[in-house]
């Protein structure tokens, strides 16, 4: 196991009371595998991933018995100094919007060489040369010239390539990609995803791909965890999950996607209602107010994620579909 997250609960104090955007999440990730973390906005997927690297804002609290074990190290007990040796070196991250994730007043070349100097102890000159190579490797033509540009001078696709090159600079063993294509145009999305798949295979690194798009997860991951309102509600290998969606939420989410093959004016299947308020989540199963199959038990008791075996097809549902 490369990464094990156990019983993770993140508590953020707000002026309207504390919220738990991640509320008791456990999952594992094997070396070299890709995990798709799927859910709608507000389900806690971004917070979960930031928690792994200790990147949550001040005042945030993790549950006492939470464990984030990366390669045998307990990350959530590591001091800042120790985490800084992992961040960017062992675990790297890509963000949704490459425009805001790059420093607007620093050339991209310099931003790229930072991790090289910091983690690998390269001289500025070597780092610069290596940065250009990295840019070229992510498919940026004229890398040497472009290294001297500022982020706003590049197109969205190129910016995201820079961000990818930066994340992969120190050949990390885990890459966390937080909606890496959401801010990009469709034609470019496919290119970036292909690039990520290619680099993932070539470098044999593990990857967590956060997305709201089940179709994308279907094509680009080996395992999927579906999150709803701070909890993982279903997880399985990708093939198994799509062949056999057991949790009503997963199926409803999948069915709600408009498809290009649909005839015009076809009525879409929807999920009624809104995602729950994070401050006051519903009792029992959090999906029960919107679920077509909900029983009294669903509204009273919270379903555990079963079976225990982390590699099995697990569902948190009292009435899984068959």
């Amino acid at each position, binding site marked *: 196991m490369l990464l094990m997250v156990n019983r993770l609960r993140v508590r953020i104090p707000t002026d309207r009371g504390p919220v738990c955007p991640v509320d008791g999440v456990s999952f594992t990730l094997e070396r070299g595998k890709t995990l798709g973390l799927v859910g709608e906005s507000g389900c806690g997927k971004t917070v979960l991933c930031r928690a792994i690297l200790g990147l949550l804002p001040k005042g945030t609290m993790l549950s006492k018995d939470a464990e984030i074990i990366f390669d045998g190290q307990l990350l959530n007990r590591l001091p800042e100094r120790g985490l800084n040796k992992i961040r960017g070196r062992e675990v790297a991250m890509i963000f949704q919007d490459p425009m805001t994730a790059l420093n607007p007043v620093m050339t991209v070349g310099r931003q790229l060489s930072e991790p090289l100097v910091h983690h690998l102890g390269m001289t500025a000159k070597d780092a610069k040369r290596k940065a250009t190579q990295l840019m070229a490797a992510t498919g940026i033509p004229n890398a040497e010239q472009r290294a001297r540009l500022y982020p706003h001078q590049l197109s969205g696709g*190129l910016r995201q390539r820079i961000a990818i090159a930066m994340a992969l600079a120190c050949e990390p063993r885990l890459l966390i990609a937080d909606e890496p294509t959401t801010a990009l145009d469709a034609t470019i999305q496919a290119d970036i995803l*292909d690039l990520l798949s290619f680099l993932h295979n070539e470098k044999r690194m593990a990857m967590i791909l956060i997305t709201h798009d089940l179709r*994308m997860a279907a094509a680009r991951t080996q395992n999927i965890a579906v999150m709803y309102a701070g909890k993982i509600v279903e997880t399985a290998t990708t093939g198994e999950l799509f062949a056999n969606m057991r949790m009503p939420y997963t199926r409803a989410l999948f069915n709600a996607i408009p498809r290009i093959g649909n005839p015009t004016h076809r009525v879409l299947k929807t999920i009624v209602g809104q*995602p729950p308020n994070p401050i006051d989540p519903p009792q029992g199963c959090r999906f029960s107010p919107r679920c077509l199959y909900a029983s009294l038990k669903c509204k009273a008791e919270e379903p555990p994620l079963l079976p225990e075996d982390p590699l099995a097809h697990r569902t948190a549902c009292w009435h899984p579909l068959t």
Partner: protein
Amino acid sequence: MFNQRTILDVQNIRVEFRIEKRKTLRAVSGVSFDIKQGETLGLVGESGCGKSSVARAIMQLPPPTSGRVLLEGDDLTEVSKKQLRQLRPKFQIVFQDSISALNPRQTIGAAIAMPLHIANNGSRSEQKFMVQKMMAQVGIDPEYYNLRPFELSGGQCQRVQIARALMTNPHLLICDEPVSSLDVSVQAQIINLLEDLRCRYGLTMLFISHDLAVVKNVCDRVAVMYMGKLCEIGSSDDLYRFPLHPYTEILLNAVARIEQPRALSDAQTDVMDSPFPAGSPPGCRFHQRCNMKQGICSETEPEMKRVRSDRWVACHVRE
């Protein structure tokens, strides 16, 4: 299928913004299309291609730099200010960002009542009754009358916007990326709502989106836009099944490619620096990204030509 009355006829509109003294940005350079009664026309393209500028030009906010916009025969670019204000209830718009589209200091009831207020239609209590009736129709609890936009979710705000637009009984509804900032489950709800209202009110719609799948679900006809110009236009079934313009093909492929990974190829589409049409180079705007280009493509700009009854394309190779 349709009563063939033309509701909207857009003729060769151009939209230019002056950025500085000598620099102008051409957001739209010569776009024409029409929409028949009861029809939904989809306008697709990537960010920055000028599709929102087309919407705003039709709304005359601001008016196009040149070209004509005929709404049921009235040229909106020609009529007087006063006439335009009288015509406005006939064509309404729904924006992408519902947070920005609703006044944060106004209750949603007041927002939806604004058209009645402007028309001086009915007493206060009558207005409230009409508003609450409309709220129920678009699926907002009428009890929410006195809430403010930030107390609602994005999907609910979008419903408020739709309600406000429908209060005037518009003949044409322009939807500018109405579902793009919504989550999948809510997106489907709003699409269904629009479909439902279309049937109930016999709405004619211009539906702008970057999402080809959404457009396919909603629109009878589709126009594809690239860098301020239309590439092709046709019925959605035909266009999705037999894309003619290479750009349409790339767009459709991209949707499929998200689900079907492929090896890295050298021909990547996103490696250009500037996504904006700086100065238009001669020839077809797409020729630099096109893998079927011929000599003529970099010399003369292709015109929109009719291929079959309802199918137009602007491409030297595929016409």
